[in-house]
């Protein structure tokens, strides 16, 4: 690629980033193709790499790399090989000190773009025309896949094979373990294939509406466009809705006394189990759990984001909060009627302002967006939450198997091996189980795991720069724009922030201005530290963070656009929000006073933390 001087500022070369002290050799836990290799230095220095802190806010454990490879195999397949999006192929990734940087592969040859345009129009047109039917098929495919995964058995390795093997009804355990592992991996791939089937087209319809609105009404706030399109009865809101219903039920049944601040789910359940009414409530809870407790406690791309089933303390904290609010006479319902009215009022209001000739286009684009957007909102529940939390648990079963045979000290350690190393360990385990030989694994793997854990801890102390390499003259990739909000303006902002300063800018995601004390939260397990009235500063949020939005006074995120989770929830709660600041978590420290101007997208650090 020709090296032109970009007008958008500059970032460090990825080859100049130094390995953190004490982390020497970190590269070995990642695949060779994910590294900035000398062999492709010239090409990679000329590309623009931005930290994907939306999906990978924390250093990447070795196994979790599968959640980079598979999604990018999926997104690239659909974008590049199925739909042939004219100007963009797929996404490449690299790892620096454990953090994941990505960039798009553009199509530069105009003839190729034109050729792809023909393919794209035909295939995307087919999808838009048959959307409802295709989405119906998609859902049944996903439900089928989730069912298969839940039924998949991870066998143990017994002293003697059961009689079924003798009768030819069952394969031997060595084969069954190998088969289960490869099937688990392939199911993950299949989920990621499904994940991206409809997503790009869904975002594209929305993006087109947004551009149309802005071309005609240049100052229309992004959140108004989002509000006109946003679904009302989407699945994503169901889990919390069910919790609110359970909270009301607890009060109706007179068992709300069990939901006291500071109690564990077990203590609450134990008290409930003592009364008839309490047992009825618990029965109702069991019904709600399938499937709504498959909600994730994070955006699902790391193994440590669990489901509500795995970490009941999270939904129970919400229950306690809802019960307390109800007793205090507060309204806890999501005001759906109000949201619906607001959505129609906005659409009518803007429609009225357009020229006669443009109203039909507006209506068509709005209807198309409303038709496709439920997918954009709902795929998260099926893929990122329900499937992925179950899938990590399946991997945990293999971890437990390896631990039982001494290959790992703890089942959880499985996530510090790559998926290929796990395959290798299982190879040796099944081999030595079969031969009765002495396995090397128990002395081979634990030191590797220990070293990697230490490196990841050190990586957590590092503040990755928002971007590396050479910014493009113009961002052309529709996926980067739609999914990550990477625009020319955003890159300029990041470049200016590399210089430092006490002001951060981002997308104005929810209006209003608030001053308060910042609380930097790096992962969902720290949300318990957040105190009433504080300003949440984080990489990004997910539905798992729901319990804290009633506590905080504003939100600032590193990554995300006006359709990000933080933006949507803050608008619902009426909290100011600035999203996509690039490095709020790196710049702002817990305890600092900050002002969040969600109307203009500006965050100002007012003073240092005390002490």
């Amino acid at each position, binding site marked *: 690629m020709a090296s032109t001087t970009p007008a958008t500022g500059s970032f460090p070369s990825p080859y100049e980033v130094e390995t953190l002290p004490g982390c020497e050799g970190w590269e070995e836990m990642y695949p060779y193709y994910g590294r900035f290799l000398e062999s492709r230095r010239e090409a990679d220095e000329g590309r623009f790499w931005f930290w994907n802190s939306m999906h990978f806010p924390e250093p990447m454990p070795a196994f979790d790399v599968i959640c980079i490879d598979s999604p990018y195999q999926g997104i690239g397949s659909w974008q590049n090989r199925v*739909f042939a*999006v*004219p*100007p*963009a192929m797929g996404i490449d990734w690299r790892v620096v000190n454990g953090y994941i940087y990505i960039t798009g592969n553009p199509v530069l040859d105009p003839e190729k*773009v*034109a050729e792809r*345009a023909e393919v*794209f*129009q035909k295939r*995307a*047109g087919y999808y*838009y025309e048959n959307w409802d039917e295709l989405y119906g098929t998609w859902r049944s495919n996903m439900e089928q896949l989730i069912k298969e995964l839940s039924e998949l058995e991870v066998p143990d390795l017994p002293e003697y094979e059961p009689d079924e093997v003798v009768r030819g009804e069952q394969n031997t355990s060595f084969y069954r373990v190998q088969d289960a592992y490869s099937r688990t991996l392939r199911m993950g791939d299949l989920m990621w294939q499904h994940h991206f089937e409809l997503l790009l087209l869904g975002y*594209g*319809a929305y*993006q*087109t509406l947004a*551009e*149309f609105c802005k*071309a*005609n*009404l*240049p*100052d*229309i*706030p992004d959140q*108004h466009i989002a509000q006109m399109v946003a679904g009302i009865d989407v699945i994503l809101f169901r889990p919390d809705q069910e919790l609110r219903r359970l909270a009301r039920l607890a009060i109706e049944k007179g068992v709300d006394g069990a939901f006291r601040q500071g109690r564990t789910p077990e203590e609450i359940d134990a008290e409930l189990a003592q009364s008839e009414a309490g047992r009825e409530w618990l029965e109702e809870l069991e019904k709600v759990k399938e499937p709504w407790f498959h909600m994730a406690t994070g955006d699902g791309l790391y193994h440590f984001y669990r489901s509500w089933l795995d970490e009941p303390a999270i939904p129970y904290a919400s229950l306690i909060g809802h019960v307390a609010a109800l007793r205090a006479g507060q309204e806890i319902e999501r005001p759906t009627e109000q949201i619906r009215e607001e959505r129609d*009022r*906005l659409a009518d*209001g*803007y429609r009225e*302002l357009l020229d006669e*000739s*443009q109203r*039909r*286009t507006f209506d*068509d*684009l709005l209807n*198309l967006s409303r038709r496709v957007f439920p997918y954009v909102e709902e795929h998260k529940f099926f893929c990122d939450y329900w499937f992925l939390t179950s899938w990590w648990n399946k991997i945990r079963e293999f971890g437990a198997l390896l631990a039982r045979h001494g290959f790992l000290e703890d089942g959880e350690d499985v996530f510090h091996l790559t998926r290929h190393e796990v395959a290798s360990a299982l190879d040796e385990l099944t081999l030595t189980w079969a031969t009765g030989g002495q396995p090397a694994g128990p002395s081979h793997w634990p030191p590797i795991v220990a070293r990697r854990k230490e490196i990841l801890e050190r990586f957590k102390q590092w503040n990755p720069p928002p971007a590396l390499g050479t910014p493009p003259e113009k961002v*052309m990739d*529709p996926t980067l724009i739609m999914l990550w909000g990477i625009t020319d303006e955003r890159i300029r902002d990041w470049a200016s922030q590399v210089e430092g300063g006490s002001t951060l800018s981002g997308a104005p995601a929810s*209006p209003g201005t608030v001053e308060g004390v910042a609380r930097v939260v790096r992962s969902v397990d720290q949300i318990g530290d957040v105190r009433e009235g504080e300003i949440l500063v984080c990489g990004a949020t997910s539905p798992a963070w729901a319990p804290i939005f009633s506590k905080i006074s504003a939100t600032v995120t590193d990554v995300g656009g006006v359709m990000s989770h933080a933006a949507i929830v803050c608008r619902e709660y009426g909290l100011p929000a600035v999203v996509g600041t690039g490095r709020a978590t790196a710049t702002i420290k817990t305890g600092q006073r900050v002002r969040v101007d969600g*109307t*203009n997208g500006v965050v100002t650090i007012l003073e240092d933390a005390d002490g």
Partner: protein
Amino acid sequence: MAEAPLTQTLDALRSADEPAFGGKSASLGQMLSGGIPVPPGFALSTAAFHAFVRESGLQRTIDDALSHMTVGDVDSVSAASRTISEAMRFAPVPAAVEEEIAARYAEVAKAAGQEEPPVAVRSSAVGEDSSEATFAGQQETYLWVRGVEHVCDAVRDCWVSLFSPPAISYRARLASAPEPAMGVTVQLMVDAAVSGVMFTCNPVSGDRSMIALNASWGLGLAVVGGEVTPDDLLVSKVTGEVVREQVHSKEVEYVPDPQGRGAVRVDVPAERRDVRCLDDAAIAALVDVARRVERFFGSAQDIEWAIARGAQPPEGVYIVQSRPVTTAPPAEKPPAPAGGDALSMVMATFGVKPAGGGQR
């Protein structure tokens, strides 16, 4: 025409009264009829001007002076103007006209609850658009006028302006010059706590869903005259939310002269300087009025407004003037393919160039 009344209250006027009362008075009357809060007042018709010329016997002086004038000769035009103006200034306002002014002024005083309320006296051009009126000298304004006698003087000064040098040479150059005539508007002055201008679109981007509001402390002079950097707000017409705002330091403001005449410039007290001068209720009231004015005229408007001291909006919000926005850039049209087909536009988002070679 001879039957037209000499005066009329503003709220009784409609656009059909333009030939008799002039554009400004007719437009204010029309706004009042549409429920738009305009400060109360009254209007003088061209019949009042004609009565003045007739009863004072000035017609001969005017004709004489103009017939001796050489168009294009600056000195000769000035001499003619001076002769006519001096004669007019010494001529009394006809008794019938003065009586009606006194009665109408008393009505304004009663409505305002003041003995001698301050009024603005302005010329109201007839049969000409505003750019022509500027040439024709029909843009006189006298502010903070109190008392019948001073109102009469200001009315006469408006009439005199018909014979300013630019006005008479302008008419002399026209192929068929109309008989000089004008109406006059007399309107209660609002002692504004806050005032400013607003556009019913964003004049920078052309966005019609926005109201661009400039506001500063005190009377409108400071904003119109560019003596302060006003607070600058962009408000959504659809939701009433403030979409962008810049609060500036407003160093000075104009307040009514305690002596009762005109306005004086004072420093804004430090504690008010950097504070946004509009609260949420005021913004909501202004947005509401702006929408009504725009709907009323059927086009984007540039509106001067004021909020009376001590009033709680929506009470006390007044429109002082409204004119069509003529300079707004047209909103950029989306690069839609022919027919604005939604699906083709979605395709374009993914980099499919629209048929016909349009550039995205």
